[in-house]
């Protein structure tokens, strides 16, 4: 269980200090699929980065199974990023020099030394191929990112995020750069992983339709959680407000 307690975060933009999160509180249960929605600038991505130890809060605390992770530094923080969290980004962020298989293997490359890799490379490659098969890209393992469609690149990014068998997948607008149909297929893939692997998924999205299929929707506004409901309730309320 990941607990976010009274989280504050500000950024310096030019000469101005911009407060992004104002004492935010949130709890993410193990095995749940949580979606975070909200307008641009509401602090969704910032929250995701803080939860994933990519950034440090100004104050407040983040705990994973009772242990603080917001104050980790150095190797411990790198290991947390590598082993506990998996990240999926809006723009896929695959390394253009590497083909799909090597992109999926990148977390393992980062973990292993040259000698260590030599000993375990077959095992890793098999696992990476299994991940590519799992996301439906087993036949495209040799292809470089420029030879793949947006949906395929995002699938490869999901496979990469899953390689180290993380406890939590953090997806920052994974469908934001995809057409509706491909976006749905990606969210369906995440749902499958959540259901089959008991993988905790936190997804930031603008798309309410996609968020409706998740276990829980959190709506953010002005750096705070303003609504935290089951999808059916929140979705109905949000659509009413819009309509």
């Amino acid at each position, binding site marked *: 269980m990941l607990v976010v307690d009274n989280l504050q975060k500000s950024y310096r933009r030019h000469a101005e200090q911009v407060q992004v999160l104002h004492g935010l509180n949130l709890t993410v249960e193990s095995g749940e699929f949580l979606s975070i929605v909200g307008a641009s600038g509401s602090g969704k991505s910032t929250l995701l*980065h803080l939860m*994933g130890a*990519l*950034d440090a809060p100004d104050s407040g605390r983040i705990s994973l199974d009772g242990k603080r992770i917001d104050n980790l530094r*150095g*190797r411990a923080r*790198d*290991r947390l*990023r*590598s*082993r506990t969290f998996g*990240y999926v*980004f809006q*723009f896929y*962020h695959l*390394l*253009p*020099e*590497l083909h799909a298989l*090597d992109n999926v293997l*990148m*977390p*393992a*490359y*980062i*973990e*292993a*030394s*040259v000698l*260590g*890799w030599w000993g375990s490379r077959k095992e890793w490659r098999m696992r990476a191929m299994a991940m590519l098969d799992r996301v439906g890209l087993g036949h495209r393992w040799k292809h470089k990112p420029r030879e793949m469609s947006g949906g395929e690149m995002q699938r490869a990014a999901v496979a*990469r995020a899953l390689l180290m068998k993380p406890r939590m997948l953090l997806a920052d607008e994974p469908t934001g750069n995809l057409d509706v149909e491909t976006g749905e297929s990606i969210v369906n893939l995440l749902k499958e992983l959540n259901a089959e692997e008991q993988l905790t998924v936190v997804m930031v999205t603008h798309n309410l339709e996609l968020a409706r299929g998740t276990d829980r929707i959190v709506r953010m506004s002005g750096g705070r959680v303003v609504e935290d409901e089951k999808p059916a309730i929140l979705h109905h309320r949000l659509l009413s407000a819009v309509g």
Partner: protein
Amino acid sequence: MYKLLLCLRYLRTRYLAFVCIVSVLLGVATLIVVNSVMSGFSNKLKDRLHGILSDVRIETDSSGGFPESPETIEQNILNSPVGSHVEAMSPNIETFALIQYTVRDSYGNKITQTKQVRLVGIDPAKQAKVGGFSEYLIRQKNSPNPSFDLTDEAKWRLKQNISMANDDPFDFPRIPQLPPPASEKFGGFLINPIIVANPGDAGPLPPPVMTADAPARLPGAILGYSMGHYQYVDPDTKISEERKILMPGDEVFIATVGASGTKPVSATFIISDFFKSEMSEYDSSFVYVPLEDLQRIRGMDNHVNAVQIRLKPGSRDDNVFVHKTFVPAVQKIMPKPQSTVQSWQQQQGPLLSAIDTERGLLNVLLFLIIGVAGFGVLAIFSMIVSEKYRDIGVMKSLGASSTGIMGIFVSYGLLLGVVGCGLGTVVGLLFTYRINEIEALLSGVTGQEIFDRKVYYFDKIPTNVEVLSVVLVNFGALSVCVVSSILPALRAARLHPVQALRFE
């Protein structure tokens, strides 16, 4: 593992990096070639200087030479504590002189030429034992007992010369004869041989008798090669060929100062051989004559003004022993200021240090090429880091540490350096080993002689590849590449993953 993987991938995919590799390659290759050629020149020069100068030389500025006889000097040295290190000694007289000879131009006209030379009186057999004298002789090359004797061919030419002179009513009377002793009177250059008289003699020597028969012992002389030869360039074909001015059997007239005062003395000598050290200065100015003849001309009795010493093999190569032990010990026997004892390196100190300075300066200047390559690495890596902002963010989000990210770019710099240095070393060594073929090719293409063999009389460009020098050049180039990559690598390492991921 990811550092190695990405380094290799960047090397294969970033074509801009080839600019860095080429810069390093050129710098390393140039430095290796220049160092090898400079070292080759330097070694050849040192070998020749050493060969001509022997290991240690004692000399005096006194015009009459050392007060002791050469035998006494040799005995004193052999009896000294360092005497056991001496392999051979050769007493010399060395002085400045004027040489005059007559040549015919292409129309058959006679031209009398006069040159300033360094006249050296030697015992050729002893001289051959103290240095590489005989290896530079043309006719008597590598002879263990070289001499001033004329060959039959030279004697025949001498006879021909005498016959021609007798037939020519306008020619000066000429006849070789043993040099006369020193005189207080100077007979002038126009009379040959000079009619002089010893201070104690009743009168001058009798005038020469014209005869076609040469005397039993002819006063031979060994001339520097370029005094008797020159390079003729055909104005039409531009092909150069070596032509002879003087040949063994031709006579030369030599004038110098006597031992007492500055009275000029002179004598006629017959060329018996040529001396070709391939050192322009020596080949154009050295004239060797028999020691006893020069002693006689200058009125030095049995005295010399220099002694050359050859040390035994173990001692000769020990610079510390030569300079700290041997030279001071001999200087004790032959005290200053009358005598100066110097090793060959001390004698040629300014020249040798000039070569070293020149080499050092060239290294510094040429290392700037690698410095430029370093700036290339810095600029190109800065571009690559900017281009890879998001990739760096992704890698950090996947668990890569800041030092790991830094390691990617430093390793990449090192890899470019290794490839550039490796290729540069191969190119540099190939260029060095094939430098003469390349020079010939370039000379053929441009129509200009790139390496003028007349300057040093080297048949080919001398080279000497020093392993230490190659290692140092490579180490320097690698260091420049690594140091140049540190700044961009630090920038990459300090990138915040969130900022990097948001970078557009």
